[in-house]
Structure formats: structure tokens, C-alpha cells
């Protein structure tokens, strides 16, 4: 069965650079969630999209923005990167109908040096 795809899997950037993370949900899933997991931390909700519209927003810095495109894939754009942005970024998707379960991708490990 198809799973959530995230790219790239690993990314190394320097301070003040920008990064774009991509997420391809499971086919026919209409909701995408982004989570950030710092070293030794629990995952924290950043933002979600339902049918290409932002549906909820968590502790996402103003330097970050995201969107969901017509093919339902989503991108998380991060600017003016800081050392503290180094983390594992997960994307999850869920199917129509308010499904309870989210399907997580393998994550993108971002390292800011």
C-alpha cells in the first residue's frame, strides 16, 4: 500500500538559509498535518490543511509557511533558519470523513549548522 512520502529525507542547511520540505499524502487523503520533533522531544503540531485550505495552526514560527497544492501535496517553507530549527519534521495525512487515524511519513531530518 502507498504510504506518505516526504522529501528530502535529510537536509543540511546553514543559519539564515531557507529550506523547503515536501510531503506527498497517501492517494485520496485530503488532510495533511505537519509536526516538528526536536532532539529528545515529543512531536509538536505545526499546521494542517484540509482540501487545500489551512485548517489549524499550532506553534509554527512566523518564519515558516506552508501550503497544500491542487494535487494535495504540501510544502513547508522555512526561512532565516536558526540552529533551534534542527529537528525531525513529520508529515501525516488522513482520508476524507474526519478519520481518526493519521498516517505518518518517515520524516525529514533537518540539520542547521
Amino acid at each position: 500500500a502507498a504510504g506518505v512520502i516526504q522529501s528530502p529525507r535529510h537536509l543540511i542547511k546553514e543559519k539564515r538559509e531557507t529550506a523547503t520540505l515536501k510531503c506527498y499524502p497517501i492517494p485520496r487523503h485530503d488532510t495533511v498535518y505537519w509536526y516538528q520533533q526536536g532532539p529528545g522531544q515529543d512531536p509538536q503540531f505545526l499546521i494542517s490543511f484540509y482540501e487545500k485550505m489551512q485548517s489549524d495552526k499550532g506553534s509554527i514560527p512566523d518564519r515558516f509557511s506552508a501550503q497544500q497544492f491542487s494535487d494535495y501535496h504540501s510544502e513547508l517553507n522555512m526561512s532565516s533558519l536558526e540552529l533551534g530549527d534542527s529537528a525531525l519534521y513529520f508529515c501525516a495525512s488522513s482520508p476524507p470523513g474526519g478519520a481518526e487515524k493519521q498516517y505518518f511519513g518517515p520524516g525529514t531530518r533537518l540539520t542547521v549548522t
Partner: protein
Amino acid sequence: SQQGEEDPQALSIQEGENATMNCSYKTSINNLQWYRQNSGRGLVHLILIRSNEREKHSGRLRVTLDTSKKSSSLLITASRAADTASYFCATRSLIYNQGGKLIFGQGTELSVKP
């Protein structure tokens, strides 16, 4: 953590023993889910228990939920070395305008020694 506490934060047991992890949460929930994460890798969904359920089983997993105490426990029976991982509980809010986002607990790091 946005959610609350998980305890213990770390647990070390021998293969064959049972492992119990506890999770507390703060808000009213629609459901509570447990996830497993191998060292810095992806989150794997283990089991989901709804707010109107008290206990659920899946293979060697047993989950309980006490909404009056806002707490849950995950029991892994007859543990194996391959169960070594971090385990997180996550809750989905009952409040509609909070959408379907999951709020995670701090996690328990389980080490099963062969």
C-alpha cells in the same frame, strides 16, 4: 510537552517481561492513540482507543483509558528485544475547531535486553 506526562520516561526490562507505560493528558479527548518510534525514525501507529472505551487489545498490546483521571496505560506483554523503541501517547481533541491535530506526550524510552 503540550500534553502532560508520560511515565516512566525510561524503562529497562528483560526479554519476556511485561512493560507498562502510563500517559496523562489535560483536555477532553475524542480518542487516544499510541505510537512507536525507533531511534529518530518514523512514527508507527500501534493502537487507538476511543473516549467511550475503557480497554482495548491488539496482539501483545493492551491499552486502558480512564477519562475521569485523564490517563491511559499501554501494556506490552512478553516483550522482545525488537520492542526496544520510544513509545508516545497522542490525543485528538474533542473540540471541533481544534481539528484533527494530535497532541503528543513526552514519550517513554523502552529498552528490552535479550
